[in-house]
């Protein structure tokens, strides 16, 4: 035994590991919100100095997950953004998020320029990803996949400069997201949920929160910090995000939070594979004076950064490595000096809401309100909406109107109508293609912009209805893309030098924000599903009856019939009955009664015959 061990020792040469070409960064950003909620954002960034042009691309994996890498290579995916979200981001209450996501599942991918059949690649991609993340992404078929022109631009280096034939976008608002989606997400982390910040991702708590969103974002970035356009060598970057909004006030009446309370876990080690493991807590006091809460343990340093409006914000920075190890655990806790005062939330400068209008089962409408609360600035946005093919969009009903921002905008209100200078519209095709609308707009300062259009509900084939069809059909959230607004209060890429974070650099050359509105639930006329068989039976019977009478008319002739000569079944039956009846009565009663009965019956019979003779009865010959 010792022999083997010594041989193995001899064989394993102790050498310093050089040429590290991939790295992992773990980050956690915590922002206590005004109304007592706590916004938590995890980000795990794997950067690997490899690119598609190199031999052995995506063959020998170290930190990058092999299952995902193989898929991306196989189907020529250049950029991939997947989000699985439970709950809706409340723009008015929670301010801007670091990673936006609509409710349900959203996937968009840019394919490499050498991809021959993008539709085929997309089909394979969604099927593989749906198996990988246990989500029904396979429903992102051609009928609800679109290729946006302006809203979703490449976020990294692209081989084709962003031609829209290489992008596919789809979203499934109905998708329920839960533990079964989180587990595969955790498996992609190099340290899993065993070590490092991943330990905190406790499914029991995450899906008990107001909002929970996991994301996988893959792109190519420049290896040497040059801009996208001048890039020569690229690396691949995988960003896994997890955003949660907790509401600690719900369970304990105080705004205080700690890792133990939020996640029911504490940090006891640092992921040994990570280059850095940092936690940032936004400690900015919205009111002047003392900070409203104290952190324990205290942060090792506090960074200050400026928002675009010039406001100073403080970030408490924890380097996890310095807080854990040798029986030390890190449990960051915030203790508030005063109880929470509920105030009307201050909505952000740009936000949007979407509504359904109309009544009845035939027609309806979609109405979207986009707010620009800036008193001075005109803001460019791109409005994007996808309607499933069974809601037939009428483009001629599309109106864009501006209202003053403080006005209550009702459906019937009349505002300043503007014509959008540009419009990208893809008409839908039944069962094949969704209706797609993209409108670039300028939002004047201090206005609400109302975009509204009408649709008509189409009838589905009876096999196309999902189970529980009376629940209704979901319509995707509208996506409003805009450059990052000036009241952006989160750290951004300009501050990365201060905190050495990659988290805020995701915007690349152009920083954009995508506002996802509420999704809609539209009721369609729903049939009774036992109907087809009833219809078959009924239709067959009607045809049979019609055929029977026509057949009779064509193959038979109706003539006058003399019952004296031809006795019909009726007469034969009568005679038979009479004979039986008479026999019985004669055996029971005396002859007179018998005689009477015969007389009566004879009378009736003759009367009947007389009638027949006179009128002539129609009889079948």
């Amino acid at each position: 035994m010792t022999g083997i061990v010594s041989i193995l020792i001899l064989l394993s040469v102790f050498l310093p590991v050089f040429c590290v070409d991939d790295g992992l960064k773990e980050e956690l950003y915590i922002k206590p919100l005004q109304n007592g909620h706590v916004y938590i954002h995890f980000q795990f960034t794997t950067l690997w100095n490899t690119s598609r042009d190199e031999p052995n691309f995506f063959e020998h994996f170290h930190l990058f997950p092999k299952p995902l890498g193989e898929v991306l290579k196989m189907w020529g995916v250049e950029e991939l953004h997947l989000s699985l979200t439970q709950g809706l981001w409340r723009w008015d209450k929670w301010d801007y998020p670091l990673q936006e996501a609509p409710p349900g599942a959203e996937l968009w991918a840019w394919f490499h320029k050498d991809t021959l059949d993008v539709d085929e690649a997309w089909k394979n991609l969604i099927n593989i990803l749906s198996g990988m993340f246990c989500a029904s992404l396979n429903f992102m078929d051609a009928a609800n996949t679109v290729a946006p022109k302006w809203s979703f631009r490449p976020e990294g280096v692209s081989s084709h400069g962003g031609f829209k034939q290489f992008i596919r976008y789809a979203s499934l608002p109905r998708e329920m997201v839960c533990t079964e989606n989180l587990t595969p997400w955790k498996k992609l982390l190099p340290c899993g949920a065993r070590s490092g910040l991943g330990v905190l991702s406790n499914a029991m708590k995450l899906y008990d929160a107001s909002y929970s969103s996991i994301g996988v974002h893959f792109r190519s970035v420049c290896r040497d910090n040059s801009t996208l356009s001048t890039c020569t060598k690229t690396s691949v970057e995988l960003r896994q995000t997890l955003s949660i909004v907790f509401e600690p006030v719900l369970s304990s009446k105080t705004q205080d939070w700690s890792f133990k309370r939020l996640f029911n876990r504490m940090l006891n080690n640092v992921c040994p594979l990570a280059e850095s493991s940092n936690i940032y807590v936004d400690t900015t006091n919205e009111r002047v004076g003392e900070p409203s809460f104290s952190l324990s343990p205290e942060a090792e340093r506090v960074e200050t950064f400026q928002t675009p409006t010039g406001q100073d914000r403080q970030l408490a920075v924890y380097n996890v490595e310095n807080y854990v190890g040798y029986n030390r655990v890190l449990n960051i806790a915030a203790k508030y000096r005063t109880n929470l005062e509920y105030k009307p939330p201050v909505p952000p400068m740009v936000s949007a809401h979407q509504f359904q209008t109309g009544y009845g089962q035939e027609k309806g409408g979609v109405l979207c309100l986009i707010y620009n609360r800036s008193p001075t600035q005109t803001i460019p946005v791109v409005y994007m909406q996808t309607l499933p093919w069974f809601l037939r969009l009428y483009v001629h009903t599309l109106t864009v109107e501006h209202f003053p921002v403080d006005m209550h905008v009702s459906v019937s209100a009349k505002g300043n109508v503007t014509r959008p200078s540009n419009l990208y519209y893809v008409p839908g095709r039944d069962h094949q293609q969704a209706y797609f609308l993209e409108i670039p707009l300028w939002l004047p300062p201090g206005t609400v912009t109302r975009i509204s259009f009408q649709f008509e509900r189409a009838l589905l084939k009876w096999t196309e209805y999902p189970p529980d069809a009376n629940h209704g059909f979901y319509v995707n959230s509208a996506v409003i893309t805009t450059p990052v607004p000036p009241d952006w209060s989160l750290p951004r890429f300009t501050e990365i030098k201060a905190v050495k974070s990659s988290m805020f650099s995701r915007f690349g050359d152009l920083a954009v924000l995508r506002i996802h509105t509420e999704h809609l639930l539209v009721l369609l006329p729903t049939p009774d599903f036992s109907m087809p068989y009833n219809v078959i039976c009924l239709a067959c019977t009607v045809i049979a009856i019609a055929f029977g009478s026509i057949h009779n008319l064509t193959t038979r002739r109706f003539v006058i019939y003399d019952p004296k000569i031809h006795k019909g079944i009726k007469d034969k039956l009568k005679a038979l009955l009479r004979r039986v009846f008479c026999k019985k009565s004669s055996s029971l009663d005396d002859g007179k009664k018998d005689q009477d009965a015969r007389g009566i019956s004879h009378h009736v019979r003759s009367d009947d015959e007389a009638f027949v003779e006179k009128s002539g009865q129609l009889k079948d010959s």
Partner: protein
Amino acid sequence: MSESDREKTVQPDVFTAFIQEKSTQVFAALGVGFVCIVIGLPLWWKTTEVYRVPLPYQEISTLTRAQVTCYVDFTLVVFNEDIQKPALANFGENLKAEFENLKSKLDALQIDYRGQIRYRNEEEATIFSKAASKDDLDDSLADGDSHPQHGHVYFMLVPEDNELKIQNTWIGRRRNIFIPINEHFDKAMPVIVHVLKDIVVNEVTLMKTFYTAKGLILTKADKESMRSLGSHPGYDVTFTLLNPEPQVLSVDWDIKSAIQEYMSPMLDAFAQFAEITVKSQYLHFTDLGVSPVKDVKSPGFKLKQDQLPHIINPIEAYLNSHVSINPNINFVLYITPRNHYPLKIYDNSDELSPSNCFLSPRWGGIMIYNIPTPENVSLPAEVKLDMKSIMEVFLSQLRLLLGLNPLNHFDVMIHQPGRAVISDWELDQWLRKRTLENIATSTSTLRSLAQLLGEISNIVIKDDIAREVERAVSSVSKAQMYLQQSRLREAFVFARQALLSSEKAFFDPSLLELLYFPEDQKFAIYIPLFLPISIPVILSVIKSIKYLTRKEKHKIE
């Protein structure tokens, strides 16, 4: 005019009118009946018919019953010049008779040997005299012009007192077998028969593989056939470094260059026949599914053989590939965690496994690698693995998983392929085995498919399925033809094509589409239409026919 008068005058008119009316009705009824039965029924039958392209059922049953003949060509090259021609001819006749005797005639698989015997030519003589070593001789002869293709073996009957000291029968790593002979060269005959039948062709394994694939005999699966992966168009080889404690040992391996160095000859050899992809990954913080027990006899921990099957479960989820349908061959290197160091594998008789690794049939191999935690070093300590020992273990496991037999025949010396992993003649053997296996599998798949489609009349047979079936059938016959010509390469290619096509046809999802719409339900739906329509139509047709026959009788009378 009295009532009776009128009756008399009108009566004949009414009667003729009645007769005319009656015949019009009869023809109308017959017309409707004709339209319904002669046009309507076939039209309905045709329009509701299931789309079924005719399949070559006849050819499939012929293929199933046909005997597969596999020819093995060999050449005896005599280097001894003192052997006379008549003796040589006699030897050849005897050898032919010997093979004829050993042939079994009844089998579905027939392996025939075709040999020729000749003196060495000038080129071979020069190579033989100039060769520096046995390996050199082997290589030079194989690269020569007169030694072509796959599936052909050469017996070099060299003088016993040769300069290269070939004293025993020696099988090189190409397609040459060297047999030292003296003037009593009849002794070489059993050796040739043995080498051909048992080593080069390995008839027993070949037969077993063929019959198992054909599903003809239900023999208890033997170790060898259970271990190796079946025939597939490709294999995905994945090397995984499992490091449960990266905070203690930061282990690094240079797998990229190790694969380049140790596997490229093998990948080149297989390049034309199977698509083998090689990938590697690191997995951290993943444990084995079992907890080792403390070794009482020596310091350390032990894994018992019966625990081994449970080891791979927790890591299985990380090893699967989502993009390929080829079977995955996994090689896992497990770095022992600190609290189980050193970890050793013991077999059922409590013997220490010398290589500390084990093979999981049709799955891959696991090697347990013990690295001591260095003292007085800041953790994690960095370790670079030596790939030679690791790759040697994994490559020997790969040979077994690909279905290559271990080379241990006590009576014959065999050149170990070493880094090349596979000798040329072994590749031929592998090709022959896979070809026969593919032929057997695809014929039995085709037979099952034909049987299934014949039994269930509701299944739609689309054009592309028929095309695949036809392609499979023709590929099987072509593969058989090439096997008879001993052209292994072509035979393999067609057999593979046959397998792919037959599997594609068999597993096509369109075959399932109408399966759950049985005949009786179809009629239940049609009954409300058919019953009320068919009764008056049929009755009136019968009536009309009766009327017409009666009229005919009247006329005759």
